[in-house]
């Protein structure tokens, strides 16, 4: 048994960490946070040059063809650094959907551009409040024309194309849903940027009025593909969350070592130590659940749906827990705009919602465990 990343994968993690510490310091994240740029273009180009954007994309489509374990270690570093680029939408959602369901021509058109940093993609799934559900999809597809509104769409304001979930039937079943690829620079697409908790990763509203679209995958198979894409993205995003949780823990630890109050480092008080110990516990449990998710993702195991839900819940909880208590350990300074703590707090709470909230994944996890139990 080797329930760990290989030495080569760890080396890739070190490379990514070094690259991001140089190219994506907190100052760079703040440029996007403060609204001076929609995303960090230089960093995006650099990530493409390092081969990180296409690490899991097959070589025939312009990627490195390494695999998903490699993508997991990079995702962790992206989360640590709070990279203000459309990585999760383009790589976890759009590229995964294309690799799962795209025709050769569709893959050939978009995947090399993703790997080269020349195209930003996203998944347009939600239509307002609520969690992923075929019932919530009202946007219609008549032939190759889409009509309706999607929001929130991650990185929708800067995306070049979107995978759009549309209603193509009215039987009340999952088979009513189909997926379409839409070039967002084409006609009939109106883009409106929305304000959101974490400005370092944008959210938008996309309105389609007879927008030209091409089917992605067979008609009626959209919901099945979305479920698979969400599971895969859940594992990858969980690695970002674990990276963020670890960094928040380190920030809290470092501050507790440096800050003196009542004549001693605050980290020598048990009340503070125990907060940090509990942060370590939740980050460790999350990391272990994520490793299992990574194994299931990389081997396409039958356990993936269950493993993905567990990783998603555990990593979401850990990042939220570490980010909020990092502020608590920092005290008043942690509540200033100047300190970086709030950037992790924002990212933690934004990533908790993007792929469906924790309560959605809790329900999914037990449903999946129950099915496995019944089958056994």
């Amino acid at each position, binding site marked *: 048994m080797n329930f760990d990343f290989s030495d080569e994968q760890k080396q890739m993690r070190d490379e990514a960490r070094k690259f991001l510490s140089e190219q994506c310091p907190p100052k760079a994240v703040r440029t996007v946070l403060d609204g001076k740029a929609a995303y960090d273009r230089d960093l995006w180009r650099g990530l493409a040059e390092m081969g990180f954007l296409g690490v899991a994309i097959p070589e025939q489509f312009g990627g490195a063809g390494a695999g998903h374990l490699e993508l997991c270690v990079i995702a962790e570093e992206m989360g640590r650094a709070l990279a203000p680029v459309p990585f999760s939408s383009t790589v976890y959602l759009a590229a995964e959907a294309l690799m799962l369901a795209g025709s050769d021509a569709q893959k050939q058109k978009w995947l090399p551009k993703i790997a080269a940093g020349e195209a930003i993609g996203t998944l347009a799934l939600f239509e307002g409040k609520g969690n992923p559900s075929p019932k919530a999809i009202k946007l219609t597809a008549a032939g190759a024309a889409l009509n309706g509104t999607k929001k929130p769409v991650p990185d929708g304001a800067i995306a070049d194309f979107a995978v759009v979930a549309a209603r193509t039937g009215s039987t009340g079943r999952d088979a009513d849903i189909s997926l379409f690829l839409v070039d967002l620079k084409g006609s009939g697409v109106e883009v409106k940027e929305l304000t959101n908790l974490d400005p370092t990763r944008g959210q938008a509203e996309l309105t389609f009025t007879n927008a030209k679209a091409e089917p992605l995958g067979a008609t009626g198979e959209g919901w099945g593909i979305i479920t698979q894409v969400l599971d895969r993205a859940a594992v990858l995003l969980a690695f970002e969350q674990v990276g963020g949780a670890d960094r928040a823990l380190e920030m809290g630890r470092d501050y507790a070592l440096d800050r003196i109050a009542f004549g001693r480092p605050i980290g020598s008080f048990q009340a503070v130590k125990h907060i940090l110990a509990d942060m370590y516990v939740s980050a460790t449990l999350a990391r272990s659940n994520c490793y299992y998710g990574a194994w299931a993702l990389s081997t396409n195991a039958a356990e993936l749906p269950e493993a993905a839900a567990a990783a998603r819940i555990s990593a979401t909880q850990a990042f939220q827990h570490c980010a909020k208590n990092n502020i608590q350990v920092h005290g008043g300074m942690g509540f200033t705009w100047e300190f970086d703590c709030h950037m992790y707090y924002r990212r933690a709470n934004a990533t908790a919602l993007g792929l469906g909230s924790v309560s959605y994944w809790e*329900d999914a996890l037990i449903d999946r465990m129950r099915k496995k139990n019944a089958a056994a």
Partner: protein
Amino acid sequence: MNFDDTPQEAAFRAEARAWIAANAPKQYEEELRKSSLGRVQLKNANILEVAKAWQKKKADAGWACLHWPKEYGGRGASPIERVIWQQEEGPFGRLSAMFIIGHGMCGPTMMAFAREEHKRHYLPPLASGEKIWCQLFSEPAGGSDVAGLRTRAERKGDEWIINGQKIWTSGAHYSDYGILLTRTDPTVPKHKGLTMFFLDMKSPGVEVRPIKQASGQSDFNEVYFTDVRIPDHQRLGEVNDGWNVSLTTLMNERMSIGAGVSTGFPELFEFCNSLMLEDGPAIEDRSVRSRLANYAVKASGLKYTSMRAISALSKGERPGPENSIGKLVAGSMIQEVAMYALDLQGAAGVLSGTDAELAGKFQAMLLRAPGTRVEGGTDEIMRNIIAERVLGLPGDIRVDKDVPFNQIPTKGRA
């Protein structure tokens, strides 16, 4: 990343599996499998006899104390082989409960500090289960602060005279030997005046009294020492260096990973799968699912944390204090799980024993749970260990560190 054995590990697993299939006491398998919540009991047999017979059989065939050197009754196996053995032994491993302290703590301490002739004499029957050992550290005045213990050892020629009291000694009532931490110099700071011994529990002046726990059961004992004589050659380590000797013992406690900790989750999940509530099956209720999911990810998180530790072991790395999270997480989780299982039973949850659902399994879990959060290091001590040894935070400011032991206050309010 994979869950596969190496060819060498696979061969070891096959050999272990075949031997267990041919030799394990299968008539008790079902009962052992069901007794997952700590207390192992057999209806129609004496558990101590069955456990000793199984351990002896293993020892005779070279399957006892796998990680110990062969000359002391072990197999000289690698840490990963030990883990594979535990996986293969499965429910029969529960028969080892009464040997855990001897094999996990007393044995390694003897190996590190006893004279060679003592090691050759005492360790093989400890490995084979013919002799059972206990650990006599905790005292009424020294629990988390074990260095605050007061049991005196005074030298008289070639012997030491022991007077005092130990508490929370697991298995003292059936133990043959014990390792004993005593105070030999009360005029120096507390960590510097301790000395470790081993002794025959049948020595004159040793009195064992069972403790009736809050749960109503008796798993632990008080042990009283009245003028008990221990020969100096049974001293472990130097005089007044007992604290360092005890650190070896406690370090080995943390090394024994892989056995897995009970969280109560599999039992709760099974219960919810069959339970009918007023509005239908419990498992279909959103609030039940939410609670279950939260417990599920803790249980799986612990499971895969332990697998990561095993992987580190198999690469020759030593597992560190980060393994303290197992007991910390599982201890409070099992208590919450029990409370929730009772909540789901509604008013009938108040019943216990055979009058209750599932013969009172969750009620018994509830009553035993407070102990799991205290024994082997309280939740708070575990958090200190994580904070200090994993995260590198400063130790507590200790007001008694440099004070002679006999000048430390013994009462809170004057």
